[in-house]
């Protein structure tokens, strides 16, 4: 999975069901009860990956988790130092993360995180 092409939607949960794989249109839904070390998937057309993950902590820890578990190659296209690469927008429950405290925001159950890349042609 290349960091450059993802629109990543994460839904951290305190509880998640056992491993279920569903494919609907262009989107692969993965619900897992444990943190996967490697995620294999296929996408076509618009690159949207929706993941339900079992995670508790704040945004900083989530970014570390993403880097360790989801980005198979070229992590520098997604994270830069502590935070996301400039040019990638983060929305927490459809609101800009700058309004929620950016990296210090504590994730709550059923939160919806969306990463949108602006670094492509228009």
């Amino acid at each position, binding site marked *: 999975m290349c960091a*450059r*092409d993802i*629109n990543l939607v994460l839904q951290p949960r305190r509880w998640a069901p056992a491993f279920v794989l569903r494919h609907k249109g262009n989107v692969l839904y993965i619900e897992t009860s444990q943190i996967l070390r490697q995620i294999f998937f296929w996408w076509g*057309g*618009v*690159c949207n990956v929706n993941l339900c993950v079992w995670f508790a902590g704040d945004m900083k820890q989530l970014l570390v988790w993403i880097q360790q578990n989801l980005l198979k190659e070229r992590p520098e296209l997604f994270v830069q130092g502590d935070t996301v*690469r*400039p*040019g990638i*927008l983060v*929305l927490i429950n*459809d*609101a*800009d993360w*700058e*309004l929620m405290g950016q990296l210090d925001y504590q994730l709550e159950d059923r939160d919806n995180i*969306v990463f*949108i*890349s*602006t*670094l*492509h*042609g*228009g």
Partner: protein
Amino acid sequence: MPVLCSSCSEKRAVLKRPKTGHSLCKECFFGAFEEEVHQTIVAAKLFKPGETVGVAASGGKDSTVLAHVMKLLNERHGYGLRLMLISVDEGITGYRDDSLETVKRNQQQYELPLKIVSYEELYGWTMDAIVRQVGLKNNCTFCGVFRRQALDRGAIMLKVDKICTGHNADDVAETVLMNVLRGDIARLRRCTAISTASEGDGVVPRCKPLKYAYEKEIVLYAYFKKLDYFSTECIYSPNAYRGHARTFLKDLESIRPSSIMDVIHSGENLSVREGVKMPVQGTCSRCGYISSQALCKSCVLLEGLNRGLPKLGIGKHHRLHEKILSQQPLTESEQRKLKSVDF
């Protein structure tokens, strides 16, 4: 505790505008964004009632938002314009063919006529074939030069009076930086103009209604309005020079969000010293397109491709242009200089 909108103070704020620092809710954001584009259009007197305007659409975020906003403002404020979509097919597999599907969907969603012009029919070369000959560096030159001419040709075929492109504030600021870094004074003076001058046959004036809109706001507008757009990078773009200017600008924006507008402001107010040699606008002797040299860039590039000398348009080989015009054969050393490097 959720932050409230600073404009209506009723709903939850969904974004913080980089331009002003205000926190706005969805509806107030839409209103502010559309109002600003409207003010840009009115202040610069971009359109006259009754004109036919071609919207350059690529299926990406900027052109989709542009088509949406132009249609909306045309109806809301009664500009009296006839809108059309023009799209250019460079022949990049895996990128352009997918984004063209998005443009076709946009055509149906916005109910606007669409014209697609392709490099194949205009020049006989697709970008894939060009990259195979030229290599991975410098191919953006070919794509950009050919695309400008292709847009003009498409506009003439559709008989439009003006073209509008989706260039946003980030694009203009990157262009200013690039021209400073490359020492291109002539372009530095022209690049911040919101619309091009309208002289010459075969040239349609162009404008940038989204010139003062930040890329972040365009993306969020498209996301919140759930507009259909295609979002992948061109497969050849990682080696583009613009990427360096963009990285620098994005880092600056994260420290001080107003830097993008400030760079544009600096670019707009630059004046050139007396006595600096500026190119004079003329016409190409082969195809009649506007050019500051004897042959326009597009003819030079095409000549180079067709003769197997892809580096003809890259770098400064003005003296060889006369030789090419008069169809004289080139010497051995000149040929070697112009061929692409073999690995």
